[in-house]
């Protein structure tokens, strides 16, 4: 059984202020297999977040259906871990309490929560910052907390919405490397949204390029390059040229339709 199965999903936003409907996603079909690392690549405004939010259950589908692990999505739940673009940590909880928040909701005792949180704190390299509050963390550290929090759910799929977009280049590269290492070690299905061709190429086992206005999904492009990927390698640049060409065409189309 596929990890995620999207069948003819359409999303129409009702724009209350302008009394106009917006077709954000048009008949999206997608199958994500178990242990895929799928990168959804597209220019901004083409419906990447919308698609991810529908898988997460934050937005409903206007028609069509989305199945996760064979079951239709009806709302948010801990079987799908989400890493948001902004870290969205509870500012009143410390790092470890943020990471273990799910366990608190389930009524797990403090000692057990603390112990389990430590596993994930060590995994994302935050050892020593357990008792810091979010406002005392750098952007990269806050992202790590967001990732650890999603990992602790031990979800069937992890959904990531441009989690590294706000980081500086060096931190972003480190985070990408660590994410791949964690994913290789623990396996699991990842859907990773990005508007950066390079990021998609560094991370994914498959890439889907989205087209704009309305958002549509192109076919899946498999990437069989070994990890960690060398961005200077000839094979890497081959793929990059190929995907960049498609991406450019979509981005141009998006710009034109926005101007029209």
């Amino acid at each position, binding site marked *: 059984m596929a990890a995620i199965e999207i069948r003819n999903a359409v999303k129409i936003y009702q724009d209350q202020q302008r009394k106009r409907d917006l077709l954000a996603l048009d008949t999206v079909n997608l199958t994500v297999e178990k242990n895929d690392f799928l990168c959804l690549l597209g220019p901004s405004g083409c419906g990447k977040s919308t698609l991810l939010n529908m898988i*997460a*259950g*934050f937005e409903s589908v206007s028609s069509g259906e989305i199945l996760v692990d064979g079951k239709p999505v009806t*709302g*948010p*739940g*801990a079987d*799908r*871990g*989400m890493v*948001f673009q*902004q870290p*969205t*940590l*509870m*500012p*009143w*909880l410390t790092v470890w309490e943020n990471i273990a*928040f*799910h366990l*608190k*909701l*389930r009524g797990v005792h403090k000692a057990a929560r603390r112990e389990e949180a430590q596993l994930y704190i060590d995994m994302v390299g935050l050892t020593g910052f357990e008792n810091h*509050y*979010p*406002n*005392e963390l750098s952007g990269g550290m806050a992202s790590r907390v967001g990732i650890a*929090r999603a990992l602790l*759910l031990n979800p069937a799929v992890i959904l990531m919405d441009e989690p590294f977009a706000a980081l500086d280049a060096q931190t972003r590269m480190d985070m990408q490397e660590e994410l791949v290492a964690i994913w290789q070690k623990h396996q699991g299905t990842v859907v990773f949204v990005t508007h950066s061709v390079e990021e998609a190429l560094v991370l994914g086992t498959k890439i889907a390029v989205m087209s704009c206005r309305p958002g549509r999904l192109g076919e899946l492009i498999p990437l069989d390059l070994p990890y960690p990927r060398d961005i200077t390698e000839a094979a890497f640049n081959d793929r990059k040229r190929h995907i960049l060409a498609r991406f450019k065409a979509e981005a141009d189309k998006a710009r034109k339709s926005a101007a029209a």
Partner: protein
Amino acid sequence: MLHLIRRGERLVVPFLLIIGWEIFSRSGLLPAALLPAPSIVLHSWADWAFAIDGSSQTYSGHWLSDALASCLRVLTGYAIATASGVLLGIAIGWWRWVERTIEPTVQMIRPIPPVSWIPLAIIWFGIADKPAIFLVFLGAFFPILLNTIHGVKTSDRNLIRAAAMMGATEQQMLRQVIFPAALPSIMAGLRIGIGSAWMLTVTAEMVAVKSGIGYVLWDSYYFLRYDLVLAAMVSIGLLGYGTDLLLKLLMQSTLRWQRGQTVQGR
């Protein structure tokens, strides 16, 4: 050393005020009975508190029980206002239907000054603690309620999404996400509320109750004891300052996570 100087800073202005007042009172520009010098006020106050020479007559030695009576009214009314203001505020902020059904009524009652309830409060509750507690409640309730509603409404939607993603039920969402997210705003409401609470206790004691510091204040006015009027005023100021200080400490310990994030933390 620097620390001691800092502590001393806050005493400079009151000290200068008192010196100026003492000099002015003794200068004879006004009849001494109309503006008693601080030294006289202090003397009467000492008698009111410790019964040193009976100069405050029937109040001699009663300060503590008067202060306690006032504090108790403030505390009771304020506690009821806090509990109901926070609960109702969260409900109005969170559920649309509660907002639609209850908020218009609340907003209509709010502009009525709490003191204008005094006649009804006396008719309903008689001359005792209850009308004062009722007034304190009215005064503290609205700022707490409005600030709670504001805090809930402005809490980050993404935090709610994050909690839903981690499997929070609605009740958990309210207790563990919405309430802490609204807490800074609730605390601001609590501090405004404590000010109104003292104001209304004293007002109520002046007209509807026969004990407490407000009562002593008004009664002394009838007997032309302006030294006691002033002693009562200063007492109210100090008690109000003390309760606000307690709230501030509570705020600092519960909002520890805001440290270094706001201007306050400088």
